[in-house]
């Protein structure tokens, strides 16, 4: 893992980096990408553990969670979770998974690592800002984790932080935990903004000669659209969080009716950010998946322009659907009708993407590699998550299923389903990032177990939701109408525990391959995109000479060459260069 020698040789102007400037305060986008990856994987273990504790409580309420008797009272009672701790568990599980796992990995890691490599640039437009983005992000993570150790425990008002519950300490009994939650997310917003500005600037200005917008890989397109959404959505969250902090600490009443405030204002602001946020999370997963499906079907992506434009359409529509989170909130019901219409419309570009993925598989020469399996897993989960969304888009149906496990099932199929694209991306770009291959057999075992038990954990939640099982309840056995469904809760918990345990195959494979994996060849997947044309290990500055791009990224099985792949920067004569896709 030493880029040092090559970097020095290739780019004399980059001074020999010391250990600190190479591994810690690095301005190299590739190192920053790796840093985000390690941060995200570490946080994933914490977020996952919180989920396992919750599942334990739901299956076997008020029994001791094995291995947790060390946690002092009143947070746990010799391993037994009390209700306020349970509320903190799901609040922190969601917050960590969204802001400190999916965002750092899908946006932070792959945005940083891939954008310059895939567009043929030497680095990001603002390398120092990029470094700052990671370190500010790390501070925000540390603040979030610190909230576990303050008196009263961490935030317990849900990741949605609905006012008035979140606006006064007396309502949850959590004082500093909620303060730190707000402060941490304010800091995380700054980190993401710096990243977003960097991505947008880099993509607009630093594409290699010939890399027109419509020759960019869909991964880059997805990160571009995501960065624009981040740039526009985060300020709204930041404003809402600042108002909430003032309500809590400075005696204002933005959200408190006794001072003339309005609790629903929080929901409007939160979801105005929150719905684009869903697409911030899922768009990069769609981009990565498109690249995998094309590469491993050895076939051009089906409908490249439709794929790019449907992402842009999703981005636009994501601004006018936030009210579908609020159908029964007390918002004017006429608005509910309007938001139902826009919500139904946003399902269309998602449907286009799904059918185009199928079209890509059609007539292919499909290689079921580990990244391909995970990409297909993402598609399969996204189909379920997308279809279940239609139920709650219909306002009357939402009256019944709102705030039930049907919703929990839906957003886990969409958002937790991203984990499949995330794993696909890690397996796929691991050779580029760490110059070694991950073990294939372990990867396949990891996929099969993850796929089975992911569905085992989340699919039956639909049944519970249809039965009326509310989300965020501590003990389902307190309700007579839920008690008969309890076997499903036990089944889900077993699936979730095995799902968690299966990740050991990934962890072992990842760590082992980091140090002792098989050395990779230059282009292990026979892919077309530019990152595989850069040397491996890529030096600080990436390319030895700036590549020239002759064609789109998906020219697989082209009749112009004997091989079934045709890299974007391969010059095969003037004819091909002029045609371009």
């Amino acid at each position, binding site marked *: 893992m030493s880029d040092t020698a090559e970097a020095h040789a290739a780019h004399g102007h980059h001074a020999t980096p010391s250990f600190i400037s190479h591994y810690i305060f690095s301005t190299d986008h590739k190192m920053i990408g790796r840093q985000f990856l390690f941060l995200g994987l570490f946080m994933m273990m914490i977020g996952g553990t919180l989920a396992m504790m919750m599942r334990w409580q739901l299956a076997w309420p008020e029994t001791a969670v094995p291995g947790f008797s060390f946690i002092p009272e009143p947070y746990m009672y010799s391993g037994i979770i009390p209700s306020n701790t349970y509320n903190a568990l799901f609040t922190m599980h969601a917050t960590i998974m969204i802001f400190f796992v999916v965002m750092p990995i899908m946006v932070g890691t792959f945005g940083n690592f891939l954008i310059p490599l895939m567009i043929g640039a030497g680095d990001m437009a603002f390398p120092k800002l990029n470094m700052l983005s990671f370190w500010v992000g790390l501070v925000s993570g540390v603040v979030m984790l610190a909230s576990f150790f303050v008196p009263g425990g961490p935030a317990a008002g849900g990741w949605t932080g609905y006012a008035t519950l979140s606006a006064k300490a007396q309502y949850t009994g959590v004082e500093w935990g909620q303060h730190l939650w707000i402060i941490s997310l304010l800091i995380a917003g700054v980190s993401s903004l710096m990243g977003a500005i960097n991505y947008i600037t880099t993509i607009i200005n630093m594409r290699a000669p010939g890399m027109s917008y419509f020759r960019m890989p869909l991964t880059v397109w997805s990160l571009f659209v995501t960065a624009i959404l981040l740039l526009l959505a985060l300020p709204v969250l930041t404003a809402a969080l600042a108002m909430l902090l003032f309500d809590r600490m400075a005696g204002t009443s933005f959200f408190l009716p006794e001072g003339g405030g309005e609790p629903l204002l929080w929901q409007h602001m939160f979801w105005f950010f929150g719905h684009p946020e869903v697409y911030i999370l899922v768009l990069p997963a769609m981009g990565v998946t498109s690249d995998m499906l094309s590469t491993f079907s050895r076939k051009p992506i089906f409908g490249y322009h439709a794929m790019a434009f449907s992402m842009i359409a999703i981005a636009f529509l994501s601004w006018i659907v936030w009210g579908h989170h609020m159908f029964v909130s007390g918002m004017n019901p006429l608005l509910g009708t309007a938001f139902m219409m826009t919500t139904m419309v946003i399902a269309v570009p998602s449907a286009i993407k799904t059918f185009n993925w199928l079209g890509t598989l059609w007539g292919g020469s499909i290689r079921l590699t580990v990244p391909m399996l995970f990409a297909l897993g993402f598609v399969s989960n996204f189909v379920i998550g997308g279809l279940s969304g239609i139920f709650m888009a219909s306002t*009357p149906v939402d009256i019944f299923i709102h705030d039930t496990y049907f919703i929990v099932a839906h957003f886990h199929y969409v958002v937790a389903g991203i984990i499949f694209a995330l794993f696909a991306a890690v397996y796929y770009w691991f050779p580029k990032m760490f110059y070694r291959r991950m073990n294939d057999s372990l990867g396949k075992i990891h996929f099969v177990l993850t796929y089975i038990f992911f569905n085992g954990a989340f699919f039956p939640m639909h049944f519970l939701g249809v039965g009326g099982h509310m989300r965020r309840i501590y003990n389902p056995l307190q309700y007579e109408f839920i008690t008969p469904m309890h076997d499903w809760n036990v089944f889900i918990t077993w699936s979730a525990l095995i799902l968690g345990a299966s990740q050991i195959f990934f962890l072992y494979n990842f760590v082992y391959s980091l140090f002792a994996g098989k050395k990779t060849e230059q282009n292990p997947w026979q892919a077309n995109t530019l990152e595989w044309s850069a040397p491996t290990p890529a030096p600080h500055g990436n390319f030895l000479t700036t590549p020239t791009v002759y064609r789109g990224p998906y020219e697989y099985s082209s009749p112009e060459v004997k091989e079934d792949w045709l890299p974007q920067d391969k010059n095969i004569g003037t004819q091909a260069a002029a045609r371009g896709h």
Partner: protein
Amino acid sequence: MLQWLPEDVSTYGHEIDSLFYLIYYITAVAFILVTVLMVVFLIKYRERPGRRAVYSHGNTTLEIIWTVIPAAILIVLSFMSVNTWAKIKRNPPATDFEIKVFAKQFNWDVSYPGPDGKLGTEDDIRFDNDLHVPVNKIVRLHLGASDVIHSFFIPNLRFKQDVVPGRTIIGWFEATKPGKYEMPCAELCGFGHSGMKGWLHVHSVEDYKKWADEHLAPKPQ
């Protein structure tokens, strides 16, 4: 999956349920279609020596078809939803039976009009977590909250409405079958959220009169 919907005892619940079933069948067909195609393609087009993938960048006609069909289905679904939604949430019918439900951590505070016949006055008669109504009677609810947001949920009536501090929200239902139905809070409202619930008692007309005479009649001074 279908038998999991709780029994419906309201006048409008069947409209929600039939929309639910309709979406269920549409999505089931879409799911099976996509899954079968995916599995068939994965088997049929698996990598084999000597065969090269089709070099195709797409097919505009196909893409238009699979854009227009889902769009048409979704638009029809929204129009089918509009009337039921308006009936339940936008146009509560007239009635002479009004009850106030005021949520506070972690109880439903239910009030009936007192001797003055008006809701929201000093002489209202209050109950904790018990709501008594006659069968086949339109009930208008005045929903409020004192501290945080709660959500008044009666699964068997397909009734759900968040209650928000600082405002009164009107809801309504008409129960069609006497019985005792659980009435949980569906919105996270603090450490006592789980277990915040009450009971809806739907009485036959005679039983309700008996109950009302006993509990709502003016107490002799």
